[in-house]
């Protein structure tokens, strides 16, 4: 009896340990060398059929990136600034030369997000609401690639908290507030995807930014 408890404990412990182990480590040399303080996230390009995908995802980027220690340019102001300059299509905005973008924003780094899945597919027994996105971070002056990532989240998962850490939990909590007032399940899942994609706590995620590092030193 005692042996079986010990064995059970060991199995549990090893399961927990493997839960923490990272996969292939990401090469962060360029990211570290650039050491950006600020991130300008451009309006995401939407490759899905749901027209609300771009802005829905856009409203979710600030929490994980700011909580990772970066200055994040306010998405509503960024959107309006582009609109005032006659640009409303994220595809056009992503094609702008970096110099033009930085005449306006002066951002240390610029992030390009693409949404590849957004919405609900109905199957025989279950419906699956899924949001998948990838992100590319480049140096604001040189355009050098600093980081790349991809994440997905689905309504069919158990509501656990893998990948996002504390910020992931925060995002989920924030989103749960709104899900009672809107029925937009995709919006909720987009928050989970964004938390996984853009939190410094995520596996191979962005590095902790200056404002998080200075808080952790205190």
């Amino acid at each position: 009896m005692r042996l079986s408890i010990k064995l059970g404990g060991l199995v549990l412990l090893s399961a927990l340990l493997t839960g923490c182990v990272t996969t292939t480590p990401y090469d962060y040399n360029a990211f570290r060398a650039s050491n950006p303080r600020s991130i300008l996230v451009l309006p995401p390009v939407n490759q899905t059929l749901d027209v609300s995908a771009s802005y829905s995802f856009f409203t979710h980027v600030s929490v994980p990136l700011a909580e990772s220690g970066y200055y994040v340019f306010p998405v509503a102001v960024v959107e309006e600034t582009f609109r005032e300059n006659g640009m409303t299509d994220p595809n056009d905005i992503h094609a702008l030369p970096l110099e033009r973008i930085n005449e306006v924003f002066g951002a240390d780094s610029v992030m390009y997000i693409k949404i590849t899945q957004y919405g609900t597919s109905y199957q025989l027994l279950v419906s699956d609401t899924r949001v998948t996105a990838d992100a590319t971070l480049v140096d604001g002056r040189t355009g050098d690639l600093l980081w790349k990532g991809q994440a997905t989240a689905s309504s069919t998962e158990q509501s656990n908290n893998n990948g996002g850490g504390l910020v992931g939990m925060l995002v989920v909590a924030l989103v749960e507030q709104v899900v009672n007032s809107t029925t937009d399940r995709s919006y909720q899942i987009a928050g989970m995807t964004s938390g996984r994609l853009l939190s410094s706590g995520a596996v191979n995620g962005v590095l902790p930014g200056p404002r998080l590092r200075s808080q952790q030193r205190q």
Partner: protein
Amino acid sequence: MKSILLKGVLVGCVCLLGACAPVSPPLYYWGNYQPALYQHHQNGVTNYDSQISAMEAIVARAQAQGQSVPPGLHAHLGMLYFNTGREPEAREQFAVEKQLFPESGHFVDYVMKAQPETSL
């Protein structure tokens, strides 16, 4: 004996779980900023007054709790004030943004220049 073993395993598990989770509290008070952003967009972006009340409420609650307002919130509020012709308040909000987050300096200067001065 059995219970001691069990306790040991439990303590071990808790320590391991703790090792996975970051210990620091959130950097900012977010309130309902993100859902508010989305809902305003769903309702059309021109309902400035209700957006202003939502932003002002977040700033007030953050101050009451002694927490920091997230990056961009003051600039966002500033933009809404500009949109509703409340220019002095708008400029004040952008100045606060720049003071709290010097990373925004270049952009704040751009916005201030882009907005024509109105004589009062």
